[in-house]
């Protein structure tokens, strides 16, 4: 039972105009606690994929949650289990105050008022937003709005958290704050699916990468292997992470041994270099 994928799709197909398939995912599954980065050029189908995963776009094919098939009747169940944090908080935040905004999802789940209040409290505390509770959403800064949009989804207590391009339009300080949130989620063993153009960030954070190219899965595997495949990256208009290129260069120049493992973050590289001395 523990090995059952928390989310699995088979033969997922979607087309916007009926003439050309925008998305065709043969098979994709997520295990509990996985951290997966979805990479791909603009228009590769990342956002479409996400919207299909929680049933907002009605795709052909089958979707399973913890082994149970989600039919049309289970649409609300699917939306509860798979929560999407959208790219632009200004296209997600619907309510006028932060507290009301975070309550929108739980209210739609028809939870009792006490439970809604508890979840709003918890999510606001999780994202350090408690003092913003009765503030108006339209006077918040970009980083604060982003945190509100994450609290929105946490309050629904989904099995899988999906982030669509979360670091776009955040300044470095807010990216750091966001990474702290991701760390916290990792410690709790949450399942996170995240799309990004920032390969350096993906390389640091994810354990598995899925590359989408023209609406189909071009690669799916451990992120170190996927991002080391230069031919694949070139075909899908992606670049390798800077750290990987530097480590390769150091290998070529003989600073690092030929068979040294490739480092995942600057800290590891530093230790490797110090070990060489």
């Amino acid at each position, binding site marked *: 039972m523990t090995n059952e994928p928390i989310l699995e799709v088979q033969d997922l197909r979607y087309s916007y105009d009926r003439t050309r398939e925008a998305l065709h995912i043969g098979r994709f599954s997520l295990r509990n606690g996985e951290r997966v980065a979805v990479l791909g050029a603009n228009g590769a189908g990342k956002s479409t994929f996400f*919207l299909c995963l*929680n049933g*907002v776009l009605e795709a052909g094919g089958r979707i399973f949650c913890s082994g149970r098939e989600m039919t049309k009747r289970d649409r*609300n169940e699917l*939306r*509860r289990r798979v*929560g*999407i944090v*959208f790219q*632009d908080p*200004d*296209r*997600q935040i*619907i*309510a*006028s*105050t932060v*507290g*009301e*905004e975070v*309550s*929108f*999802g*739980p*209210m*739609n*789940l028809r939870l009792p*008022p006490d439970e*809604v*209040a508890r979840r*709003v409290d918890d999510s606001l505390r999780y994202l350090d937003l408690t003092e913003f509770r*009765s*503030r*108006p*959403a*339209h*006077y918040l*800064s*970009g980083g604060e709005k982003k945190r509100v949009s994450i609290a*929105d*989804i946490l309050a*629904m207590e989904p099995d899988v958290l999906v982030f669509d391009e979360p670091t776009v*339009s955040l300044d470095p300080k807010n990216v750091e704050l966001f990474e702290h949130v991701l760390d916290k989620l990792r410690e709790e063993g949450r399942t996170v699916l995240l799309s990004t153009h920032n390969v350096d960030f993906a390389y640091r954070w994810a354990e598995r990468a899925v590359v989408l190219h023209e609406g189909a899965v071009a690669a799916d595997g451990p992120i170190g292997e996927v991002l080391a495949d230069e031919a694949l990256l070139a075909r899908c208009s992606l670049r390798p992470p800077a750290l990987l290129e530097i480590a390769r260069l150091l290998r070529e120049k003989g600073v690092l041994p030929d068979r040294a493992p490739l480092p995942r973050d600057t800290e590891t590289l530093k230790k490797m270099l110090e070990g060489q001395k």
Partner: protein
Amino acid sequence: MAHDHHSGPVSAIDMEAYRSGLRHLSPAWKLGVSLALLVSCVALRSIPASLFVLVSTAAVLCLGGRTPFRLYLDALAAPLVFILLGTAAIAVEVGRAPAGDWSVPFLGLWWSSSRAGLLRAAQLSATALGAVSALYLQTMTTPVCEIVSSMAALHVPGLLVELAYLIYRFIFLLSGSARQLRVAAQSRLGYCGFRRSLRTFGTSMGTLLALSLRQAGDYYDAMLSRGYDGGLRFYEEKRPVTAVQAVLGAAWALFPLAIWLATR
């Protein structure tokens, strides 16, 4: 997107309503008291009663709610101009012959005024100022979203309440987009000269429409993904009216009537 800086009196009042020290009071209580005071100004037409409303609402707003007095005065200034111009026409009569109690010849005409006319002008000014101030008691302490939610309690149809709520939210999104478009056009000299300004304004409004439609579509997807199924539901903290508040509110609302009876 960068943090939007809002300016202008409307958004200043909007922002102040969220900060007001009286925000925690029940929106229905505030609506009730402010409507009662407004009606008593208009119905009684009494100068002392209206002055009481003006002074008491200003004091409660600025001392109790910590609304900056400057903002209150600014907000009162706009209707004040209308009130003074309107009542001047009542106080002063212009004719070919002197009339009333005092007359002054000027520009070949007699400008005259009477004790009764002046009294009536003062009465109207006081009434209008008191009424506007009573309204501000509501608008400066209650954010629009709470006014809208309290409309639901008054059995306004749900569709209208939700529309009002969304329109309020969209005002800020649209004005943000509009500002960005305007700045982008200005930086390309789009507003040099009258003809070009008109043309630029027209095209940018067209773009704004297309943008808003797309944004509305994205919004709908985001709402669906959080389980939206046709009804906007938010959790609101209950803010019941306490017995003390009810008594104080009633006393305040009835005091102008008492003043009117005493000074009649």
